[in-house]
């Protein structure tokens, strides 16, 4: 693997990229020295992405070779949702396929190559997601050649959600796709962001993404990551968030399909009175595997983090939840709550859940809890004793279990769509 990786790095060195060159070089050097995680690497031991890469993918950066047409995308985008629809094909921004009705005084969306001189880009690009923190951040930083830069201007309350569609054109060469996003939300600005992944065709795909989000003072950011398109998708993505004073960041991660999905959500609360919410729902079937690693780093006092991940697992599916909460010595009066609850519907499904709290401050309120269980027979019987069929009683209970995550989705069209998908899935 290392050999192939080194070759690719050599090729990448010779080719152009719009990512900051210093960070890119750092990432390459790091990869040359450390490689990708081996089977026993602590952070990736349940999710063997390296093996998949080695066996099935070429590591080649995905260049948009095949031309994707509007017709091909019809029915795949959330047409009914009024939004700024931003399409990226194999990691490359495709303005001709996008529908953006933004007022540039409020919202600017551009590719990295157009953003090179923008102050916010210069200040933050590749500054928060560190290559040495995660091999797949390094991989993306080394191999992504372009990216998407979104700037929400100071004071702007962007009304329509911004939806990023990451399209894999899934050519036969099995490239890896490296989406790279930088989103800077200015002081007192508000925005709803969605990342959604779509594969054209049935082919297996591998996506390695990095999204950096900066929430300036008093910013209000809702972020949604949706994974329900392709049962043969492999994905490892990092959402790296920096929060400044009094900002509120909410992430909702919903995973319904995928061969092997790894979501890293890292939130650094670098200022006082920040609030972050991490909601997650994974509803898996077949041989899907989803691994959610979250990390919230309380660096300053008086901040609140709230985490609630729920899993419903059927078939042979597997899930991993790892929730790190760091409360630094300075971060007095921190409130940090974490919960991960799982229902196993089949004997062959499994969940691995691990809270990881490291607290150096003394005046904090922290709580965490994980549960893995079956359907509650008492509840099932109660509803059946009222005349509900087994199937509808089961669906109702599971839906109620999932509801507190779904209810938090503030984009109505997407919430409704997910509700429908979930009800359909649970009624099977």
């Amino acid at each position, binding site marked *: 693997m290392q050999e192939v990786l080194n070759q690719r790095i050599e090729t990448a060195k010779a080719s152009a990229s719009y990512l900051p060159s210093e960070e890119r070089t750092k990432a390459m050097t790091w990869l040359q020295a450390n490689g990708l995680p081996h089977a026993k690497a602590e952070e990736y031991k349940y999710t063997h992405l390296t093996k998949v890469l080695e066996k099935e993918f070429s590591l080649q950066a995905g260049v948009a070779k095949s031309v994707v047409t509007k017709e091909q995308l019809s029915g795949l985008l959330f047409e009914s949702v009024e939004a700024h629809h931003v399409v990226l094909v194999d990691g490359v921004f495709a303005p001709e396929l996008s529908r953006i009705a933004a007022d540039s005084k409020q919202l600017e969306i551009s590719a990295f190559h157009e953003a090179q001189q923008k102050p916010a880009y210069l200040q933050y690009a590749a500054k928060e997601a560190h290559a040495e923190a995660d091999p797949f951040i390094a991989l993306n930083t080394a191999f992504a050649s372009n990216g998407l830069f979104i700037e929400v201007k100071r004071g702007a309350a962007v009304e329509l959600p911004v939806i990023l569609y990451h399209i894999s054109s899934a050519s036969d060469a099995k490239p890896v796709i490296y989406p790279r996003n930088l989103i800077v939300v200015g002081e007192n600005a508000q925005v709803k962001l969605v990342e959604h992944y779509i594969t054209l065709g049935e082919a297996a795909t591998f996506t390695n993404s990095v999204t950096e989000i900066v929430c300036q003072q008093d910013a209000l950011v809702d972020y949604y990551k949706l994974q329900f398109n392709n049962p043969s998708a492999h994905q490892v993505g990092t959402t790296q968030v920096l929060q400044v004073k009094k900002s509120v960041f909410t992430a909702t991660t919903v995973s319904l399909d995928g061969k092997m999905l790894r979501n890293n959500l890292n939130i650094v609360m670098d200022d006082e009175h920040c609030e972050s919410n991490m909601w997650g729902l994974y509803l898996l079937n077949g041989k899907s595997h989803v691994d959610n690693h979250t990390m919230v780093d309380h660096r300053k006092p008086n901040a609140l983090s709230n985490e609630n991940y729920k899993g419903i697992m059927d078939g042979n599916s597997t899930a991993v939840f790892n929730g790190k909460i760091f409360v630094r010595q300075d971060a007095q009066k921190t409130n940090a709550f974490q919960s991960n609850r799982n229902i196993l519907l089949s004997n062959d499904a499994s969940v691995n859940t691990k809270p990881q709290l490291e607290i150096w401050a003394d005046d904090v309120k922290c709580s965490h809890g994980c549960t893995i269980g079956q359907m509650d027979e008492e509840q099932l019987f109660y509803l059946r004793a009222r005349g*509900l069929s087994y199937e509808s009683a089961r669906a109702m209970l599971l839906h109620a279990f999932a509801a507190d995550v779904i209810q938090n989705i503030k984009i109505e069209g997407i919430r409704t769509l997910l509700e429908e998908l979930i009800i359909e899935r649970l009624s099977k």
Partner: protein
Amino acid sequence: MLSIKNLHANIEGKEILRGINLEVKAGEVHAIMGPNGSGKSTLASVLAGREEYEVTEGSVEFLGKDLLELAPEDRAREGVFLAFQYPVEIPGVSTTNFLKSAVNQVREYKGLPPLDAVSFLSMMKERMKLVEIDQSLLSRSLNEGFSGGEKKRNEIFQMAMLEPKLALLDETDSGLDIDALRIVSQGVNKLKNKDNAVVVVTHYQRLLEYIVPDYVHVLYKGRIVKSGTKELALELEEKGYDWIKEEVGEVL
């Protein structure tokens, strides 16, 4: 309506019901009394179809059908209703929410068209008055944070919505203060007619002053050891169960 013959049931290999015989006819009210642990709730659960219990012997016929053959939901659709002694909490599911599906699935079973939202709501409003229950309670997660009395009132409200042929009320009086007891009992009485029947499980005569039984049975160690009229309940209230235990001691 209901005919129980020599019913035996086990849980976890332990025999709890040991030969129950009971006949309930349309229009009747039966009371089942008996010391703690004698099997009253077990009987109610077996009739409602709780699957943990294994019926090892005997038969139960309900309106000409073999009740034991039916799934719990089909028993409910045929008209059996169990007001639980300990109603379970269901976070995220409100009474309104599941009752709408329940009522319509029962209707579908009977070949009736579903109720639309408007008719369902007006039916709710009407039945809510019957047990003086508040809309806000019905919109909350079922039984979550309900007081004992609220839980029981909610059970009877559901009964009013489902209009069962046979209502099994398992200690519906426990947790109710005297005013609530009166309201709930009056609700049950209003729902009573010549075509349906009620079986109340209770430890106390007080409930039976409101819901007046035609027959009173004493369940002891998994059998009905004594049956009588409402005077038997008075006697039990006065004297407790020891005399019955003595009376049946030699038989058991």
